[in-house]
């Protein structure tokens, strides 16, 4: 039996998968904290139209994907509060974007495999250059999150108080959606537009339910995303099934376990219930 790492394409897959898993889990923590998982989902579908449009024009699909996710992330951020509770509007736009993607693909008749890889990921087909692009984007994401870290936590938890303390809440919300846009474009390369949830939301949500501090949740989220991605790539190598199936199945399994075990764990670790506060 062969060892996966002896092949270039597998080395590239592990390298890109590692970078993207880390970036997705870190950004994903804030996606979950801010309740933006549907927005992230929508961004990926809008990105599909961009990626297929780029294929039609003979440009790198990643560029089309990034252009569309960034533009729609910016729009969502600028609409801000007006978009709250407008899930239907977002849903209609994302459905239209998928439809556009279908149109672009039908106009471009040569390779149906291109569509499949955008929908479900192409991690086993990434080149050395793709890895370098992923690394650059990943570094941009991590630096951006590190710079925004404290005001982003503050503004996500308590926007009123944060604004009163001088945090530029609206600006942060726009910049963060741009960060999500880049993270979506990264995650699409591994798991595809239909399964962005599995890297961007599942590990972060699982970790958030098991930990008590942002740093703990981010750390555990990264660990889970790495485990899922490495296991997914390895299992896909030894079997006939796609990487994105394994990653999404593992993400689901971890989430389910955390949900089942979570309440018991937190009850055991929790403080004595409602101890009266000392007076005077």
């Amino acid at each position: 039996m062969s060892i996966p790492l002896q092949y270039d394409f597998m080395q590239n897959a592990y390298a890109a998968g590692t970078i993207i898993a880390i970036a997705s889990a870190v950004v994903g923590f804030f996606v979950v904290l801010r309740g933006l998982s549907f927005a992230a989902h929508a961004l990926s579908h809008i990105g599909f139209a961009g990626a297929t449009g780029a294929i039609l024009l003979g440009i790198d699909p990643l560029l089309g994907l990034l252009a569309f996710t960034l533009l729609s992330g910016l729009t969502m951020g600028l609409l801000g509060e007006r978009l709250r509770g407008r899930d239907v509007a977002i849903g209609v736009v994302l459905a239209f974007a998928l439809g556009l993607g279908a149109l672009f693909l039908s106009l471009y008749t040569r390779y149906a495999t291109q569509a499949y890889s955008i929908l479900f990921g192409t991690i086993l087909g990434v080149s050395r250059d793709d890895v370098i692009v992923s690394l650059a984007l990943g570094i941009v994401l991590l630096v951006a999150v590190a710079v925004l870290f404290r005001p982003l936590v503050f503004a996500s938890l308590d926007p009123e108080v944060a604004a009163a303390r001088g945090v530029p809440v609206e600006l942060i919300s726009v910049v963060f959606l741009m960060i999500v846009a880049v993270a979506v474009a990264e995650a699409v390369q591994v798991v595809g537009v239909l399964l962005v949830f599995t890297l961007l939301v599942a590990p972060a949500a699982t970790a958030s339910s098991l930990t008590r501090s942002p740093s703990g949740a981010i750390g555990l989220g990264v660990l889970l995303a790495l485990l899922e991605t490495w296991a997914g790539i390895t299992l896909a190598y030894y079997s006939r099934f796609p990487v994105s199936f394994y990653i999404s199945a593992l993400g689901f399994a971890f989430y389910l376990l955390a949900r089942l075990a979570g309440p018991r764990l937190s009850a055991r670790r929790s403080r004595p219930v409602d101890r009266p506060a000392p007076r005077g």
Partner: protein
Amino acid sequence: MTAPSTRRTVGLPAPLVEIQQVTVQLGTRTVLRDISATIWPGEFIGIIGPNGAGKSTLLRLLLGLVRPTAGEIRILGSPVRRGTPHLGYCPQHRSFDRDLPITGREFVGLGLDGHRWGIRLPDARRDARIMAVLEAVGAGHLADAPLGQLSGGEQQRLAIAQALVGDPSLLLLDEPLASLDVRSQGEIIELVDRLRRERALAVLFVTHGINPLLGVIDRVWYLARGHAVIGPVSEVIRSDVLSQLYGLPVEVFEVQGRLFVSLPDEWAHHQHRDGARR
């Protein structure tokens, strides 16, 4: 503008907040009309009035979250700006997700440096300061508890600790008693009163009814229809004063030391017509 210096020469402390003829319009609605008041250091003031009277707007004005359409506000002699360390603020109660990965300690810490860019580095002095304020509000045992799993009263204590940790001169509390049971309400009032005495802290306390605050507050600030009266309870919660404020015949009753304000039926229609929503 000469008033503060005159006061200083006669030996009174400088005013903490000066509000001069402030009017606030939000869209087409005038939320506050021609409000003037001076707040002194260490004062405990209850802000009451019906829904939509502009109570929260008044707090948001001081925080710089709302700009006055006309008039001027000065805090310790300087114009209002966002992020001033002189103010501590607890907005109306929000519900937090049970899974929220934030402990009491971290939540309080946001009040100290949550507005700073970048990642926080370990700092023992910071930790000690947070622990001290947690103890001061009787929430030392909540330092490592997950915020989302605490009761309303416990979360309120942590919110007050978060507002206090920057060592402000004025604490702004918006409906801190809402969604609390009677016992927790009493505990929060007792806590706020003790804190303001220990720390010479001025407090603006927005609430629905005056009764829980009787005997604790120095003055009451009564808002209705965007107008306001400020003064000792005995001079404000009176039939003649409130009738003038509401522009309708209002009656104040006292029953066993508790005050009740009876509004005529027209008020409900007036509210409805005016769209005094929030």
